[in-house]
Structures are given as structure tokens and as C-alpha cells.
């Protein structure tokens, strides 16, 4: 459990650092690095970063948008279409970030297994 916590913190820290100069897929690199150095077991290799990066994206999205009364979020939730639900839009945002976090993590872990 402690390992998962450290992994999550490292992933989030790296994601925050990388995203200032990489495209959106910086999160893939962040979790790949985390999983290369910190060994997670079983399904947590995918699901731990799914949760941590998913949360990161969701919180970031919420905090940007809430300070503007969700004006654009409400419109994009019509466009996508999510029936105008900002909650669903934030959830989808988190899910997309999370899935790529998980994929990065899987790749990092399998690389580590390969070279060790």
C-alpha cells in the first residue's frame, strides 16, 4: 500500500513537471518512469496510475473551470455529447488521463522486467 502511495505521488509529481513542456501525452512518460523505478504488483500496475493520473486531470479540470463558473465546460458537455453534464465531462477527462497513465505504467513496468 505504501508502495502504491509513493508510486502515485511520484507519477503526479513527474506529470506536473513534464506537462509544462511536453504535449498532453507527457503523462504516459511520467507513469512509465514511475513504474520503471517503483515496482507495483499485479493489476495495480494499471489501476494505480489510472486512479492517480485520473484524479490529477479531474482535479485540474475542475479547478480551472470552477473559477470561470464552468461556462465552457457546460458547452463542451453539450458538444461531446454528455447531455450538458459537467460532472460527466470531468469524469471523462479523468478517465482519458487515467487510461494513458495506466498504459504508460504498463509499458514502464514491462521494460523494467525486460532489462532486469
Amino acid at each position, binding site marked *: 500500500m505504501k508502495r502504491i502511495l509513493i508510486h502515485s505521488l511520484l507519477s503526479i509529481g513527474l506529470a506536473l513537471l513534464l506537462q509544462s513542456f511536453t504535449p498532453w501525452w507527457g503523462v504516459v512518460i511520467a507513469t512509465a518512469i514511475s513504474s520503471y523505478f517503483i515496482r507495483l504488483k499485479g493489476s495495480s500496475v494499471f489501476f494505480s496510475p489510472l486512479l492517480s493520473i485520473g484524479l490529477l*486531470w479531474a482535479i485540474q479540470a475542475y479547478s480551472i473551470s470552477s473559477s*470561470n463558473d464552468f461556462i*465552457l465546460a457546460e458547452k463542451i458537455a453539450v458538444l461531446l455529447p454528455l447531455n450538458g453534464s459537467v460532472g460527466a465531462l470531468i469524469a471523462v477527462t479523468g478517465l482519458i488521463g487515467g487510461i494513458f497513465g495506466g*498504459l504508460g505504467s504498463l509499458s514502464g513496468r514491462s521494460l523494467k522486467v525486460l532489462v532486469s
Partner: protein
Amino acid sequence: MKLIKFIFSAALTLFLVYAANRGWGTLPALGNFMSPQTGFWQNDQSESPETTMQLDGLRSEVTVHYDSELIPHIFAQNDEDLYYTQGYITAMHRLWQMEFQTYAAAGRLSEIIGEKAIEYDRGQRRKGMVFGAQNAINEMLKDPLLSERLYAYSNGVNDYIASLTPEQYPVEYKLLGYAPETWQPEKSALLLMYMTDMLAGRDEDLENTNFLSLFGRETFDLLFPDFIADQDPVIPRERDWSDFGKVERPEGPEGVSKAIVQTHEVLEKPDPDNGSNNWAVNGEHSESGNPLLANDPHLGLNLPSIWYVMQLSAPDHNVMGATLPGALGVIIGFNDRIAWGVTNATRDVKDWYRIEFEDESKKRYRYGDQWRDIREVVETIKVKGASPVLDTVRYTHYGPITYDETFKGNGRENLAMKWIGHLPNSNQNTFLGLNRAKNYEEYVAAVSTYTAPAQNFIFASKDNDIALWIQGKIANKFNEQGKFVMDGTNPQNEWQSFIPQEHNPHVRNPERGFVSSANQHPTDENYPYYVYDPTYETYRNRVINDYFRSKEKFSVKDFKDLHNNNYNLKAAEILPAFLSMIESEVNNSSEAYYSTLSSWDYYNHTDAIGASIFEVVWDEYYKMVWDELRESELALQLPDSYQTIWLTKYHADHSFFDLKSTSETEDASALARLAFKEAVKKLDAYKKTGKSLDWAAYKGTQVGHLLQALPAFSRFDIPIGGNKSIVNATSKTHGPSWRMIVELSSETKAMGVYPGGQSGNPGSRYYDSMIDTWAAGDYYELIYLPNAQPTSAITSTTQLKP
């Protein structure tokens, strides 16, 4: 096994990153679009101007104040800095729109929205939109002062673009997956071309020719007369033209009014309702003793709005009003001496010539007794997600051959376009001149070089002058020249000269004490030059002029009321006749509609149920009257409402009233009864949906985003009255796109509003912040600062430093 695991997970990751990094069909690149760091979330913010900015392109410091509607008030120390800052700030709030409109003008929409725009793009190129813009920019760049200003504006836009990182791009770029490109002065010319096309791009020559071939001369004249009895022209009828002396008129060849070609498919036309109102009274007719001026241009209702309000101040002038993102200066506005406005002065300035080629190689065409060379232009239309499309457009000395065997028309013949929009011009200068004009003489100097789209330039000044020049470059035509497709082999069919500028109709301080225009006929039939256009407006002008004849003095409140006037003159002129024609048809199920209609006062107010019923009955009737024309295989134009009503009243047994689909022979009364029956069915069906029959609800006015009214970025069901042909010309998707009233008191006072907001960002609170005020018929005070000192109305200030 380890290797396989690695390859599998790495490949899956790479593939999904790739898949989420590009758009699929109408879906944006999801990874990029949804990311809080790069995607649309970054656009979820409203403007909060910075306090200082370093801009290397400036020569001196510039102050930009903002008021509570995000209207910038720019104070520069020289003209170059002024236009640089105009470009920079406009791009900051409207970049995507500026670019999109110039892409649309140039026929480049396929580049950003893909294959569905190819036919549109071909049409734009075959109309010679870029050809016209190039002719204009070449002319404008010859003028060193204008050239300097155009480049200053362009540099401002480009410095703003260069300051952006991709996550800061407007959300539409992210949605469609492209990036802004460099701005050039040519794009300002393209934007003006976009307006020229919107306002002077309509003609009905091909349809007229088809009509003539199907129904003959007599019927054509009956349904499409050049002048009408009820007209109340822009220039008052009292004007006697004898001071022109005997004017030179060209000779036309025999048989110019013959139908020489039939066509099935024509280019999409600009909305016939593109028009406007303006009016002004002098001090003697104003309650305050100050001249008053008002203007409201009617255009498609779009977001981001076509107008952007600014105050532009430099040492030699201080002007405020509505600008067009992409063009320099203020287009409709006022300064500390004068106010001006425009309405479209429509005239047939686009003609068609049938071209005869020497042989199939299409290299030379006949002109008189010689052969002339064709100039071939191969247009390359880039298409998003597909390979480019090539289209050969052949240019004659008239202009481009728009219709040929590959494009619309009749799939066979070659028709070349002659259009005022293609001629070299410096129209941009007219507006920069008006921005600085201090009196009548400077106003006339500014408008006198203006070519197209011809406008009714209304004017009022603190010298208590009111005036209106109908200004544009207008061909001096022989009778009916260009009303029908002409034979391009005969040089006599050419535009041989232009009406001398000083003979353009104008009026200064008329006896009646007011000047006005609403897209009606410019003059009565005594004006010594040939005047023709198929779309002169016939209702708004009479309501406006009758109002100004109704009393002695007018106030700002009267001007507001007139902007918002919902009186439906068309209904007043036909409904009483309708009611008696349909009375015998009324039964239990239609009784309620009939009685609501009978007690309706002809005002299209928001809650008027009578207005909804009238509009449904009228639409049904109009469709039934012209069934023969609507069902024809040839391209035809339907006669307008005015002429339809005239025919109903004075030729009720004309064969057009006979409905082709029935065995009986109907007259106007019988048709009105059928229309009423059909309308009742429609109204009953509508009522079953549970929606209100109040006029505003039934009409459902909307302001649609420029991207095909993308619902998420549009506003629907806006509660506002009016309709086309009403002074408050708000229909479902079209209406007053800017309303301005100026009082020329010692300190100029003005108010304005438009159905949008200053920001082009759908995520900004300023995106549509003025719509409710506009719908309610209210205005914002336009904060006209005399100098760079901020007042309490200023909410923030940005200091721009070189």
C-alpha cells in the same frame, strides 16, 4: 515472453496515443482536446486584461482601457501604433473568427472542415473572390500612407499570434485541429471582399432570363417591375434632377432583353434580407436641439458577432463605434464632430455574359470580330484528410467564367461574371477618412472614392448638417442592361462607363428635416440614369418615413422605439383582404385562430399569437401562389411579398393563383382558403408539441456559431419580436446586428448594442453578454473618453510598452 509483453504494452500505448492525438471525423483529437493542460479546459476563462505588456512592434507607449463590456478604448500617440494595437487587441479577442472569415472568403474552408466544403470553395474561387481581393490590395498598397497602416495592423495581429502557445489557441482551433497562420494585408482585403459579396453579391439575372423564356415579357413585367407605386425612395421625390442637364447614356444593342440561355442550377446567394435601417434628424427636429443619428445593419445573427466595438484615439482623431475584425478603423460610428452610418444601397452590379469559344481547347473566345485570349487559373483546393482538388477557372476580360460544363449552370454553356467587386479599389480608405472627418466636406471627400458594396452613407454633424450620399461605383447602363444574361460576343453589351460620382444621388439638409434609408429604391423613376435591382425593400422605409412625417420633434427615446418598432405593414396591407376571403371557410376547429387573427393589431410583439398565425397563413399562401415557379426545373426567383400582395388585390384571377395540383381552377380567394386550411393543420400540429404560440416562441430567434451554428456554441429561443420587412427586422436567424444611436451634443453621447459580446471565446462571460440586453430593446452607453484619463466607467487598463 518478457519481450512479447513489452512489445505488446509499448505498441498498444503508442497506438492509442496516436489515435488520441488526431481527430476522427467530426471528433476532435481527444487526448489533446480533453487534457487540462492543452485542451479546451484552458479556454474556460474570461478575459482579465493584464496591467502592462511589452510589445516590440510599438513605437511609443499605448494605453488601452476596458469598460464593463470589455470594449477597448485605445489611446495611441501615432497612427501606426493605433492600427498596430487595433490589430493586436482585435486578434486577442477575435482571432479565430478573423481567420475563419478570410478562409471562407478565399474558398479555403475545405482545409479546415474537409470534403463537405469543396463545392462551396469552388464557388468562391469561381466567383473570383481572391481575384477581387488581390486587385483591391494592389491598389491599396500603392497608397504609401494606407500601406503603412495596413502593415501596422497586420503586424499587430501577427505579434499576437506569435505570442501564443498551442494551449492558448482559441478553442475552435483545438476542435478542428489546426493552427493560426500569418496574417497579411491581403487578408484585410479578403475580409472586405467577404462583406462585398454579402452585400453586393446578389443578382437574379439567370433567374430573370429563365422566367422570360418560360412566361414571356408581359408576365415578367407584371411580376418584376423596376419601380412600384408605393415607393418612398431614399432621396425624397421632391428632388428635381434638372440640374444634371442632359446626361450621357450609352446605347444598347437590339435584343438585349431576350432570353438567350436557360439554366438549372445557380450559385447560392447571399440572404436577400441583408439590409439595414438608418435615419437622422437635425437640431430643429430634435427635442434637445442636437442632431440625432441612428443605424442598425441587418445581417445573419452569428457568434462570434460580426461587429466588435472599439474606441480608437490618436493625436489627430478620436473615433468610436463598430469595427469589423480584420478591417482597419471604425466602420459605423462617431467622433467628436460627426456621426455616420450605412445601409446597403443595393443595385445590380453583377452581370453575366455568355461566352463563345473558338474551339474545344477553350483558349480563345469571340469578342466582336476578333478572338481574345483566355487566362487560365488552376485553383488548388486543399482538403483536410484528402488529396487536393484542382479546378480550372478561365478568365475573360469581363471576369471569371463561373458556370461551365463542370460547375452548375446548365452543364453546357460558359457564363462569365462582370462584378463591381472585382475592380481595384481603396474602400478601406473611405472608413479611415470618415473616422477623421470633421464636417460635411470631409465626409463627402471620404465617401466619394468608395466603390462597393454601394452604401447609403448617412451623416450628421455638430454643424447641424444632415446628409445622405448613395455612394458606390455604378455602371452607367442602357435600359435593362444586365437584367438578363447578355451576349458576350457583342462589345456593345459591355459596361461602357460609370455614372459620374457627383451624379450619385444625395441629399443635404432636405426641407423635411430628416434623412433616412432602409434598402428601398434610391430615387424615383425621374432620376436620369438606369436604376435596377431585384431586391429593393418595400415596407420598412415607409414605416420609418411615415413616423418622421408624423410629428415635429424627436427624442433619443423615439429613436429607440423606432429601432424596436414591430409594426407589420405587410400584414396591415393584406390581412383585412385575407380575413374576408377566408371567412366562409371558418368552422369549429378554426374559429379560434380566425378570431385571434381578426383582433390582432399588426404588431409582431413577443407575445402576439395573431402574429404567429398570420405568418403561418402567409407562408402557406405564398408557397401556393408560386407553386409553378417552385416546381420548375429551371432556376427561378419568386416575386416578392409586395408584388404577391399587389397581384392578390388587383389581379385576383391571374392564372398563377390556380394551384397545379388540383383539378379546380382557383382564384386568390380560393387559394387563401386553402392556405388557411393548411395553416390550421400546421398550427394544430405545432400546438400538440406543447410549445407556446406566442410570436417570439414560435419564431425562435437564434444566434448561431459561425461553424454551421454548432449548437453548443449558439444561443436559441431568444425572446424578441419583429420579423423581416419590419423595422425591428429580427427573423429566426437574421436581424439587427448592431444598433447605434448618437446624439451630437457638445459632448457626443452615444449608445449601442449588438447580439453577441466582445469576446470570441465561447468560454468567456463576454461571449454573448449583450444578447439579453439586445433582445430587450435596451442599449449600453458607449463610453466615449475625451482623452486617455480613465473615468469611473473604466474597469481595467493595460499599458502597452515598446
